[in-house]
């Protein structure tokens, strides 16, 4: 090869290299990603962005520490069989330590950022409503109807703020998108201001959201007018409750009752005839709003890993209802087991009880999955002890209380059988609205007939069929019955813990001795039952200041003294 040819080649290569030292070699489009302008210039992309805000709702029961804890275990409903630390810290009153557990759905620091993430999406979308070139052709895909998107954004923003105020009290109100260089060290608004902010959004939302009847099956799970009204009823109930209504302003109770009544008057919802599968059906007349999620199976459902007895091939039976909870179920004659005339036999503790007990908890010798549940211990003739297959006190993956939780371990999950079912997370169901109404109305005007009607409806549900409440209850007796009804009806559905907080009843309900059942199998195959106090590890602490969560410590640390901590923390 001649030298000049090579010169030419090398020069060409070099020059092309140097001359193209232009900026475009390193300037990259972000590939498959999109700039902000492109998103909001396209109604489909914009609405997909908006709809994704739903993702930030609190949408599962078993959420602490990935899938190892529920609020039920924080309250008196249950304990964590293996003393998961995320639960233990709540039980011990170490809420800050609970929040330092790194977990997606942690109830303090996780919720704080999760809800504000959702709020940011709604703020962004509301600010862009005028920018998006919404299509006007007809019919237009339901997803891109601007009025509806705006209403959903307001509903969701209200819901996000409610999840915050129900835990922390007043929080900073962020109502627009902040730039990264702006100061966002905002003080907390008062509880009342937050509630008013929520209600304002809800009023605008409910006016434009479709009625549930207008919702196609393909839209199951989307916000409706009923959901907005149900949220409003819940917001007002919380606002009227002892924690947030220091002087017991009866007008607050009255507006809470009116809001619940508004849902009832829609006549869109009714109780499902069966309680036993209340979480396990794809749709229901009782569901006001649900998290739509495919069925969960033995193998992939984290709930199963958490609730299923190892004797049935579960990995961890940590969700263990307490005796305290089990004792709340009335006898079928409508009397509490503490009533001497109830007919309760401590040696046949599960006979003739409110059927909801069977649907909510699994107890010894119950026939379940075509076999007897075995949670007994037996002392053999030679002195050795044997245990039933669902119980082993030496291994914390078995129950600590001799109960498993049926709501979290549906019957189809059988050892070696690939069962699958829904375990729906319900944002609102009609029974709660009735209970909300009864509670608010009883507080506002006393136990009038509408209170009885609301409660008795629930008690008369097809497979529950409990007797009506006795007539002539005093307001305070009615309050106790409503609270008991709530505890039983909504058991393990993520209500009790927050109910206790709003009632300010933590010391009276949570910080009480926690009991379990001891079951001994006798030589003649009968059982001896005795209620036993659980070990110190399972006993719970609750002090008065704990009725509100602490603001995440790291957030207070970041603030220049503007974000103030709740008292006591």
């Amino acid at each position: 090869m001649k030298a000049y040819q090579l010169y030419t080649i090398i020069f060409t290569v070099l020059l092309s290299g140097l001359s193209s030292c232009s900026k475009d070699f390193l300037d990259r489009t972000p590939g498959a990603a999109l700039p902000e302008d492109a998103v909001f210039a396209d109604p489909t992309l914009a609405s997909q962005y908006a709809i994704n805000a739903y993702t930030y709702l609190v949408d599962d029961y078993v959420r602490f520490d990935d899938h190892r804890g529920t609020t039920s275990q924080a309250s008196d409903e249950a304990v964590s069989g293996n003393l998961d630390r995320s639960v233990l810290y709540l039980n011990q009153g170490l809420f800050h330590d609970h929040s330092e557990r790194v977990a997606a759905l942690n109830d303090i620091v996780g919720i704080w950022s999760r809800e504000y993430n959702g709020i940011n999406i709604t703020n962004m979308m509301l600010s862009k409503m005028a920018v998006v070139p919404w299509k006007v052709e007809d019919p237009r895909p339901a997803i891109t109807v601007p009025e509806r998107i705006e209403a959903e954004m307001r509903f969701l923003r209200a819901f996000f703020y409610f999840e915050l105020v129900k835990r922390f009290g007043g929080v900073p109100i962020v109502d627009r998108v902040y730039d990264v260089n702006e100061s966002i060290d905002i003080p907390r608004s008062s509880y009342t201001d937050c509630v008013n902010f929520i209600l304002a959004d809800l009023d605008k939302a409910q006016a434009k959201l479709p009625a549930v009847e207008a919702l196609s099956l393909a839209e199951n799970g989307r916000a409706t007018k009923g959901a907005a009204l149900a949220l409003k009823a819940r917001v007002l109930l919380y606002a009227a409750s002892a924690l947030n209504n220091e002087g017991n302003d009866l007008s607050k109770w009255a507006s809470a009752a009116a809001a619940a009544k508004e849902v009832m008057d829609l006549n869109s919802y009714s109780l499902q005839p069966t309680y036993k599968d209340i979480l396990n059906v794809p749709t229901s007349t009782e569901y006001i709003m649900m998290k739509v999620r495919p069925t969960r199976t033995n193998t992939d459902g984290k709930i199963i890993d958490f609730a299923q007895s190892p004797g049935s091939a579960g990995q961890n039976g940590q969700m263990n209802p307490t005796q305290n909870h089990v004792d709340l179920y009335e006898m079928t004659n409508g009397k509490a087991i503490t009533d001497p005339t109830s007919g309760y036999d401590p040696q046949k503790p599960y006979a003739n009880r409110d059927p909801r007990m069977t649907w909510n908890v699994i107890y010894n010798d119950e026939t379940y999955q075509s076999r007897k549940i075995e949670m007994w211990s037996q002392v053999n003739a030679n002195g050795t002890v044997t245990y039933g297959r669902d119980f082993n006190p030496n291994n914390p993956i078995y129950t600590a209380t001799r109960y498993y939780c049926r709501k979290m371990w549906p019957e189809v999950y059988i050892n070696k059988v690939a069962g699958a079912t829904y375990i729906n997370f319900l944002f609102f169901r009609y029974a709660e609205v009735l209970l909300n109404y009864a509670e608010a109305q009883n507080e506002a005007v006393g136990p009038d007939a509408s209170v009885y009607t609301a409660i008795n409806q629930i008690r008369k549900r097809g497979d529950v069929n409990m007797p009506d409440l006795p007539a002539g209850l005093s307001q305070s007796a009615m309050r106790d019955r409503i609270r008991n009804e709530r505890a039983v009806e909504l058991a393990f559905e993520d209500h009790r813990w927050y109910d206790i907080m709003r009632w300010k009843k933590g010391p009276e309900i949570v910080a009480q001795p926690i009991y379990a059942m001891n079951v001994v199998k006798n030589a003649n195959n009968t059982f001896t039952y005795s209620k036993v106090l659980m070990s110190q590890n399972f006993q719970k602490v609750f002090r008065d200041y704990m009725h509100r969560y602490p603001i995440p410590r790291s957030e207070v640390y970041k603030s220049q003294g503007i974000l103030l901590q709740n008292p006591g923390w």
Partner: protein
Amino acid sequence: MNFKKIKYIIALLCSLFMAGTVYAQKLDEPVTISGRVLTINKQPLAGVSVFKQESTQAVQTGADGSFSFKGLPTDQIVFQYTGYITLTKTASDVTNLTITMQASLIDASDGDDVYIPFGVRKKRQLTGTISSIKGSQLPQLPSSTLNNVLVGRLAGLYIQQTDVGPGADEATFLVRGRSSYNSNQAPIVLVDGVQRNFTDMDLNEIESVSVFKDAASLSWYGMYGANGMISVRTKRGSATRTRITFDAQGGMQTPLNLTRPLDAFTYASLYNEAQVNSGGTPTYSQAALDAYQNGSNPDLYPNNNLVDQFIKKAAPVQRYVATVSGGNGFAKYFTMISYFNQDGLFKGASNPTYNSNSNFQRYNFRTNLDLHVNKNLEVQVDVGGRINSLRHAEASTSTILGSIYTTPANAYPLLNADGSFGGTSLFRGNPLGYLTADGNTTDLTRSLLATITARQKVNFIPGLSMNVLYSYDIRSNYTSGYAQDFAVFEPGASAGTYNTYGTASPLIFANTDFNSNLRSNEFWGGFDYDKLFGKHGINFSTRYTRSVMAAPGSLEDKAEGLSNRLSYNYNQRYFIDVIGTYSGSQVFAPGKQWGFFPAISAGWIISDERFLKPVKFLNYLKLRGSYGVVGSDAYSLGRRYAYNNYFSRGQAGFIFGTGFAAPAATTQNALANPNLTWEKARKTSIGFDTKFMNQMFTLSADYFQEVRTDLLTNSLTPSIIGQTLVQVNAGKARYRGFETELNFSKRFDKVDINIYGNYTFQKSKVLAINEEAGLPDYQKALGHSISSVMQVASASTTYISNFLQADGIFQSDAEVAASPVQRFAGTVKAGDIKYKDVNGDNIIDNLDFVRTDYSFVPKAYYGFGGSVKYANLDMSFLFQGTTGRTISINNLVNNGTASNGYLNQFSVSRWTPANAATAIYPRLLVSERANNTQNSDFWLRNGDYLRLKHAEIGYTLPTSLTSKIKLSSLRIYLSGFNLLTFDKLDGMNIDPEMPQSGYVFAYPNLRTYSVGLNVKF
């Protein structure tokens, strides 16, 4: 000429034996060539290597400098001697003549070439800090990676082994110290000037390994050099010598440290104790304990030692390498082919169809060609490649080892009476099942590495040349194997019935898969100008570069830069280098992509000055220093283009309806930081090189400092902004330290002795970091060293800096009652760890953790070794060690699950009321263990160690013998790797470098004994 071409082609084909026969035909033409070699001062020079160009035969001059051998009058005769300038003469000019050889300047002889980026300097001319080692100085080890052979050999390079085992031999590298708290500062690795992996290369491909440590040697790489650089050069052919070598090694690898599982009786007794401690009742009756002890009923009361049953005492390893190199004025070539085979330690891991024991095989090949196309054009074509074949069981090695290490001895019989796999609901991972009935996988990784470089001299400007380099590397992975699943069976309530766990599935071929396809290209092009004007030497280099790394599923990674270097020396005594590089990175916003990275360095050979001439013992002293800025854009930002706000689409969104098909979602990515920029490392290095006492001693020392600014640190924006945030460049940290290398070489009559050592000390400090304002002072990182203790778990490795301060073990419940409340577990009793109340609030909680300086990176690391040669015997060794290093044994001692009661071999040293005085660890518990598993200094141990890394003894057959079998040399040797370890662990049988190895789930660290053979034709 014709003949040479044949030889050349044959050599190219790397056909060792054919080539051998060719040489065998070559001995003819008995003309005697003889003479004497003298120095300039007419002193005879002994030991000069004299040989014919392109031949394999050589002689050495005798004591009087004379030599004699047979050859053709036309042969080119080469004279080589360390420290002297090599001479080449035609044979007809040589016969009976005296040859005068001229001594080269110190550190400027043929063997003193040091490769700097796109340039070569004599060691004497170097002003930057580069430590180098030649491939020939490295031990020939049958080792799956080259991590092992470099450990302890180069000052300023710390290598920490992080994993071992076939195909999993991994290590992290650190150059000098730590100045970034965001990353582990892995240096960039270059092979022949291109970013490539080097640990999978064969040792015999390697000419030299250099570590670039200071700004002068790194700023050429601008944005990519801040973490230091390891530069590997592969071997090239020689125009003067033809060489054929063959190496064979065979060895055994044995585990260094391995769990000693508890026997069934001890396990059951301790389990009972743990239960009672946790408030339960004992599981095992006295009858059961007796049965475990006397082994009367192994089906019902099994007593397995799974470690003995499934881990071999030793596994074989082999390596074979052949190289052919040589050349002439037109072409030079180096070719190599090697094979490496390493077996895993699993025992009984085969069935008639497949083997599940891990096995790693590697084939390396390389051909490096230098073509002298014409007097102005030189072209190099290098093609290298490797095939890695890793076979392993379908379940991961950690899963299998976990089941072997942690399944209690009495869990189940491995096989039930009916031949089915044993197991229980709690222990379903039967190792026998994993190893014989769970399938296997073979990962075949193929890499091809190609480089072409051309150098064209520009005739009309003497000294000017144009240069280009282009590389094309590809890699892909192919996975195949067998798939199978097994079930375990637990005897049911009635005889003959079983509860089964898991689902057995029959043997099928597993799905095959191509994955991990990568391509990378680099282009470097520019000019060099090298010219001597009298005593003024000038070297100027400029290069423009672009690189692209492409993998499917994402945009390519690109880099671009323009590097320049001007070197000037006066009289080979005063040296100065100025380096300036423009470097661009796609990580940053347009307009903020380019940075300028300048460096200046200087050297002064002060021993050449007249005023130092009288100092006779000092042969050589050079002072050098450098200062400059190097950058790093190696961020782990979680997303690319973090300067830009953008949205992703198409991800699974929120589900509506009843069909459960996730709709498309549009999501906003983490909030951008448009001001994002690179880390800037300002590096200072000052040092000297000296030789004294007739060059018997060589000593180098450097003081260094690096201050790194613009470190990424957390944004302190409150979370109510509702977005995840990209970090901000607001951090600052530095390291300082010194390093030194000492070498002693001396020939005493027939004994050659060489002793060397190196030592590096470094200390880091965090100078700025965004921390939450309300954090208590004792939890802040500011002002502390960049430090953390590494805790290796099967899923991930965590780095912990904050610890509780332990105050021993509570000896009585009264002591517990009198102490602050410890809030990690519901109950605290005698036998639990006692912690100090740091903030004085009488409560021990998360506010009592304290930021510490305990670190897995040692404060100092060093190596020393030596070699002795006497007649045909030789011996060498290397020690390597660290000081100021901390390890955690928390996850070793607390290893276990609720199912096995967290019991392991360490559990016997637990606290009980009876042995309170001698207990090492807290009491046993099966639940509520959180008080005793907190990260506290209770679990920290001194991680210092000194290790006899390598020792070798060899014997070279006398030439009288080897020449008879037509060999130029034959050496046999015995070598050992990881032979001895001294630590400060009080007899705790763990590896101080990798405490987890051989425990919990990790492969044991390995000791290798091997025997080898080296043949030169």
